[in-house]
């Protein structure tokens, strides 16, 4: 029972990080039909910001917001420089563009920083744990869950109460009609990228907090997982992205914890098999987007 509680906490922490990343992918996809594979590099940028802040002796409480800000600015710059010129292009054009952006950034990290993994200085407290009865929970896990919950509440408020957030939902549904209301394409698209950067930045801080290192390909695996989560939840659906992220986190953590030793080798394929199984029964994901297939931009 204690082990179960402990693994559930782990699953919530990992699933929450996936959820934030999947949400970032979904916000951009829902508005402009782009699957941004360079989303992972936004994480990496945040990771390196944390690393350099550590080297310069910047207090963690300052370096975290700086790292998140770096991802937001990078996301907005990415849209401006790489994606605006191909806006309205086919899904394939935009997808290839995002691959190119990801690769260029990876090469830059490898050559300008280091091809190898670098240590990131973290405050002591993150590696400590608290005892609740017989359950031992890492502070970094608690922080991850709390940060995820705060981000989800923030995003929910933003998308449902703020004028710009509502405009983003409207544009995701019917871009042409949104423009008829006076909603500017640049505003909602830049807004979507800023939010995806914010989510990637927070996810990066959480990711690095569990590992204390950063490397040029750091963003690849989590964003691949987030992509799976987004599809599992229903591509383009924000609630789906959150549900898919948590679902994937639970599948991974529970399999790692409860699968018999002799099957552990096959953990990843079994996990992906479960994903395929869910998609077999719900081909459009757990919470499908109602508006997928409508014209974007």
């Amino acid at each position: 029972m204690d082990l179960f509680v402990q693994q559930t906490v782990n699953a919530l922490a990992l699933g929450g990080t996936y959820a934030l990343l999947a949400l970032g992918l979904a916000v951009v996809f829902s508005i402009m039909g782009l699957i941004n594979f360079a989303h992972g590099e936004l994480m990496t940028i945040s990771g390196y910001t944390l690393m350099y802040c550590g080297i310069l002796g910047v207090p963690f409480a300052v370096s975290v917001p700086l790292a998140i800000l770096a991802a937001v600015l990078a996301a907005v710059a990415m849209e401006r420089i790489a994606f605006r010129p191909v806006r309205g292009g086919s899904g394939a054009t935009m997808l290839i563009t995002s691959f190119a952006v990801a690769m260029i950034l990876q090469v830059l990290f490898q050559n300008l920083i280091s091809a190898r993994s670098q240590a990131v200085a973290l405050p002591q407290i993150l590696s400590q744990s608290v005892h609740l009865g017989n359950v031992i929970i890492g502070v970094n896990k608690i922080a991850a869950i709390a940060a995820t919950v705060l981000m989800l509440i923030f995003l929910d408020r933003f998308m449902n109460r703020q004028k710009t957030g509502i405009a983003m939902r409207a544009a995701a549904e019917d871009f042409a009609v949104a423009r008829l209301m006076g909603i500017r394409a640049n505003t909602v698209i830049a807004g979507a990228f800023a939010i995806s950067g914010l989510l990637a930045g927070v996810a990066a801080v959480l990711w690095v907090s569990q590992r204390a290192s950063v490397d040029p390909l750091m963003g690849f695996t989590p964003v691949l997982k987030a992509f799976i989560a987004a599809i599992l939840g229903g591509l383009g659906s924000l609630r789906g992205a959150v549900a898919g992220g948590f679902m994937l986190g639970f599948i991974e953590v529970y399999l790692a914890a409860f699968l018999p030793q002799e099957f552990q080798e096959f953990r990843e394929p079994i996990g992906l098999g479960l994903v395929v199984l869910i998609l077999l029964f719900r081909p459009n994901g757990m919470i499908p987007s109602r508006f997928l297939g409508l014209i974007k931009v």
Partner: protein
Amino acid sequence: MTRVPLLSAQGLNVRYGAIQAVRGIELSINEGEIVTFLGANGAGKSSTLNALVGLVPVAEGRVLFDDQDITDLAPERLTPMGLTLAPEGRRVFGGLTVEENLRMGAYAVNDVDRRMAAWDMVYDLFPILHERRKQFAGTLSGGQQQMLAIGRALMCGPRLLLLDEPSLGLAPKIVGQIFDLIALLRERDVTLGIVEQNVAMALEVADRGYVMAAGRVVATGTAEELRQTDRLRAAYLGEE
């Protein structure tokens, strides 16, 4: 009497690749008028309206609104100037509540008083929208969605409102309500351009009309004149 029209188009052409949907149309709408655009399916009526508001590009020709050249302006620039369209097929934001839809309609209005006046006017014209304001627009009936689409377009306080087939797919009783509303809008100083399939009702509320066929204007005149010409019927039968 010579007055400058609120909106006019000269030599308007619209193309979709090789398809030429609008072929050199001349049209004008004066302040305070209701002008209707009639013609069979595929005649180019929607393409014309969409080109006027910048939703589809103008291939050739010029569009003037309030004496300004708006030919190449995007829709988001025209709304603040007082020109908007309630598009064909209603296209309400189904995943937004009625209230959120209307709020988006007023997106471009920064003046608080003007916004309040718009809320009052729309809820006054459509009490049902006030009743259903917390409901998702996707759950409304077709007639209610059409009212929402018109209400949403009114929220920006337009000087000229273009309506593309407001009665499309609605029950006869609801169609009557929509046309009653159009008559009410005239009293509120909204100039209207209306595309309609329902010729009889359109000519009843309109002052003037254009009859289109195969991308051209084949007849124009006052509503009274159009009711009497054969060209109207000819346009529907596809003769020119």
